[in-house]
């Protein structure tokens, strides 16, 4: 396989990025970014505004094409060649910073739509709710704590609940890799800690990449941390390690 040759490390990875660069009108949003995530790993990404966190998610999920570099999913799919829907169906789920649930549909309808499979127009037209799908929805509901809001419009949920519903929709897709952008933004302390618990639970079955600013939240996640700065990796390691890194203190934590 010619794809495998381009990989510079031997161990299996769920996500492998090597030398990825993107520029917008001369501004380098990603500057030869290299990063890899092992199967089943949870990884926190931190970095100041403009460090390229969102752009990184955009290139992984097919929204933006990188100018150069390699992005491999599960060591076999070259993600730079697919669009958003194809990448999603391969098993990469993405949660946005701003909760983006479908507000005029009910909680149930949002979850139903997220369930894996049945993505073609014809399948959607002839879709039937099977008991297996119903069970899956129930299972997700008990994780995200929205059972009693099932038939309410998602637009009527609180901010935190919307965040949780969106996480529930990610779970419905049954992705291998979850990309999560600032899940704790706008959450109460209690909700934040509950979310951290949920992610730890999820990391038993999925690989996760979590972008976050909230240091308490990252501490609660208790995982490897990557610091991005000006479109490339500045430091990587345990949170304690990274916190003591002189460069990191200068560009990010010190401010």
């Amino acid at each position: 396989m010619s794809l495998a040759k381009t990989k510079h490390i031997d161990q299996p990875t769920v996500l492998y990025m090597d030398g990825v660069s993107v520029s917008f009108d001369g501004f380098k949003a990603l500057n030869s970014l290299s990063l890899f995530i092992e199967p089943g790993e949870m990884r926190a990404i931190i970095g100041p505004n403009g460090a390229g966190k969102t752009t990184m998610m955009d290139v992984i999920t097919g929204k933006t094409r990188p100018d150069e570099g390699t992005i491999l999913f599960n060591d076999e799919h070259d993600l730079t060649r697919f669009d958003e829907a194809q990448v999603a169906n391969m098993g990469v789920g993405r949660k946005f910073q701003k909760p983006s649930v479908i507000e005029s549909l009910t909680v149930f309808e949002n979850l139903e739509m997220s369930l894996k499979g049945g993505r073609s127009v014809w399948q959607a037209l002839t879709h039937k709710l099977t008991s297996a799908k119903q069970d899956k929805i129930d299972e997700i509901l008990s994780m995200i704590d929205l059972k009693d809001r099932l038939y309410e419009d998602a637009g009527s949920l609180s901010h935190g609940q919307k965040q949780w519903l969106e996480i529930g929709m990610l779970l419905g897709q049954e992705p291998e890799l979850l990309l999560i952008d600032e899940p704790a933004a706008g959450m109460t302390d209690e909700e934040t800690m509950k979310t951290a618990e949920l992610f730890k639970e999820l990391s038993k079955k999925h690989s996760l990449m979590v972008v976050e600013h909230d240091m308490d939240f990252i501490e609660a996640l208790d995982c490897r941390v990557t610091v991005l700065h000006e479109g490339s990796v500045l430091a990587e390691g345990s949170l304690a390690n990274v916190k003591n890194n002189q460069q990191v203190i200068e560009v990010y934590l010190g401010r």
Partner: protein
Amino acid sequence: MKQEIKGGPLTRLIMNDVAGRRMMAIILAIAVIVPFCNLMFPEGSAFHVSTYTMTLLGKYLCYALLAVAVDLIWGYCGILSLGHGAFFALGGYAMGMYLMRQIGDRGVYANPELPDFMVFLNWTELPWYWYGFDQFWFAMVMVLAAPGILAFVFGALAFRSRVTGVYLSIITQALTYALLLAFFRNDMGFGGNNGLTDFKDILGFDLQADSTRAALFFASGIALILGYLISRFIVTSKLGRVLVAIRDSESRARFLGYRVEWYKLFVFVVSAMLAGVAGALYVPQVGIINPGEFAPINSIEMIIWVAVGGRGTLFGAVIGAVLVNYAKTYFTGAFAELWLFMLGGLFVLTTLYLPKGVVGLWAQIKDKFFSSGGGGQSGKPATDNAEGKI
């Protein structure tokens, strides 16, 4: 939502839709009673419905079907087409071509093969694209195929290039305007600015006969009901919920793994075909089809019908089309030069004060007077959310 009625797909479709059921019952009643009163009671009887009135109401039924087609894409998928008149007109031209061929040698020039306008242009042969239109079944296939294929090609280009919002609206407007100019040309072979007219009969029945008019009226009512049911089936399926997801948050739908362009294309083609059927039923009733039907103003009026009726409800589109066209019939008779100002004013007022149209009025009144604040979430589909997306 929780108390879904079980049964076959059609039973469920009808029984879970109270407002639509009432509307369909009314349309069915009108489709039967109006022709009955026209044919069975003599002129002068209190129960007689004149052929003029029946034809006028038949036009409204065609417009209502067209409005359902527009609401299907605009109300549910956020595609604001300002060129839907093009699909209506193409369906109309397909029917018109059949009716022209039916004239045979009864035209002014008595040419058994060529329609009068071609003889007038000194054409000696029927152009290839007129072949087959002497067959009713072929013409009916083209009523669906001509708008459907145009919508498919146009939609494939536009949606795959991710043209959305006002840009899409502008190019749909350009599409219908381009067709307007093309159909005006004599050498296009569609009768130039006179269009197609002087029809004699349809399937061997005299188009001037009341019984034929009555049958066309009935057919329009049935087409409207079927068109409504098809649209309702689509919007209540999971596909309909994907459409709403695309309307409210296109990127979310993409990241959930839905190929947004295929969904838009599907619903756009279905909508174009419904519009084509409406046009095909319209033409034999009004007796003419000309390039004026492609005029951008017509397509804009359709949007107003749907907005006035209540976007994203389907049955609201029917009500809006009938209300606005009734007003148009009345006011263009009474104060012709003021009509366009009134139409514009109506659109502004609806947008400002009736975001959910006349069908949302009742919910609005209820919220205001019978509940203590907080409401506003009741009329689900046409959310404020979607408004920013046009």
